[in-house]
């Protein structure tokens, strides 16, 4: 009988270890450069029935990874932001214009832009992501070659354009002319793909906070994209991540820039309405 209590104690401590909190530090606050206060946890938008609270992917990371995003000199994404700053001023194409020829100072003219994309473009009659809008500028206004959808140059430019919107709430419109693309994105989100028969929701709505191998599953929010990943030490775009996710279900994936992924980006972005724009963020 003497042994029962110690054994029970061991068993219960094992259980406690198994049910460790979903996040490294529940009270951690994300403030960038001691200045930009980010909303990393807030009430889910009303259209979202599957979740009560939405969390930034930042909240699922370890202290060390979290701190990399808290200062722009610690955040490796900013070497790419610097490169995009040069590209912003670089004259390219037959019209002999640069981004700045029309848009001036990126920190002023692009304020708020990242927060509302993807967005319906009335003139083009389509939903445009930041990437398709940048390439429309390049081909139609500059007479320049478009950049690859998930290329380094494009990811860097997306990161630069996101910087002046950091801290602003994500606020993509889901009604009006964008509604049908949003509905298409929602359908994709809940559709099971691949040999593993997994939908986005199976992991990121039903199981966020649980472990997938040695990692915490996040809600799959895109408010931090493009993200600098410690794994591949470069900027990663939302569509490249979507492709990776679908591939991991052992399915044929959609292509970056496809109508499916644009619809999915609009829907996933709308699931984060209310979180702060964090891009460019740092993740594992």
């Amino acid at each position, binding site marked *: 009988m003497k042994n029962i209590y110690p054994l029970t104690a061991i068993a219960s401590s094992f259980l406690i270890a198994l049910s460790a909190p979903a996040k490294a530090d529940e009270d951690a606050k994300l403030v960038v450069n001691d200045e930009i206060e980010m909303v990393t946890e807030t009430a889910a938008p009303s259209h979202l029935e599957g979740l009560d609270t939405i969390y930034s992917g930042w909240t699922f990371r370890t202290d060390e990874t979290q701190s990399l995003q808290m200062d722009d*000199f*610690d955040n*490796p994404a*900013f*070497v*790419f932001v*610097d*490169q995009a700053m040069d590209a912003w001023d670089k004259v390219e194409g037959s019209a002999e214009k640069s981004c700045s020829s029309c848009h001036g100072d990126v920190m002023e003219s692009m304020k708020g832009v990242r927060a509302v994309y993807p967005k319906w473009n009335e003139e083009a009659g389509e939903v445009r992501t930041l990437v398709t809008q940048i390439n429309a500028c390049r081909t139609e206004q500059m007479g320049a070659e478009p950049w690859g959808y998930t290329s380094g140059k494009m990811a860097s430019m997306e990161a630069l354009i996101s910087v002046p919107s950091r801290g602003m709430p994500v606020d993509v419109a889901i009604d009006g002319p964008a509604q049908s693309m949003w509905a298409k994105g929602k359908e994709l989100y809940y559709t099971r793909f691949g040999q593993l028969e997994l939908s986005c929701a199976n992991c990121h709505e039903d199981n966020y906070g649980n472990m997938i191998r040695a990692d915490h599953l996040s809600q799959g929010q895109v408010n931090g994209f493009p993200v600098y990943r410690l794994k591949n*030490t470069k900027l990663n775009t939302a569509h490249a991540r979507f492709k990776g996710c679908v591939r991991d279900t052992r399915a044929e994936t959609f292509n970056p820039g496809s109508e499916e992924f644009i619809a999915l980006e609009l829907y996933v972005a709308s699931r984060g309405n209310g979180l702060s724009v964090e891009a460019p963020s740092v993740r594992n």
Partner: protein
Amino acid sequence: MASGVKPRVKVPSSVSAGEVIEIKTLISHKMESGQRKDDDGNTIPRSIINRFTCTFNGETVIDVTMEPAISTNPYFQFEAKVPEAGEFVFTWYDDDGSVYEEKKSVTIG
């Protein structure tokens, strides 16, 4: 790797004489370790930044010997004593012979 290498350095522009300040540096570089193989199974040759130095008015602050175990986009944080106004010089030495340099002036205020 001489293309696309871009240093970032954080130094306060104005300090008081004798003050100890924090410096952060980051440079974009692949830091190819020499341990990886390409799709055909051939070893990708090592190509790293092998040394980083920081001096102030010609005197050494820190001199770092770097090995392939330093991560892509090498980052360093350290402290420097600033006895007078002057200039920090940051230098990165590439395996391929390239040298990347960044300078930051500091005033006493």
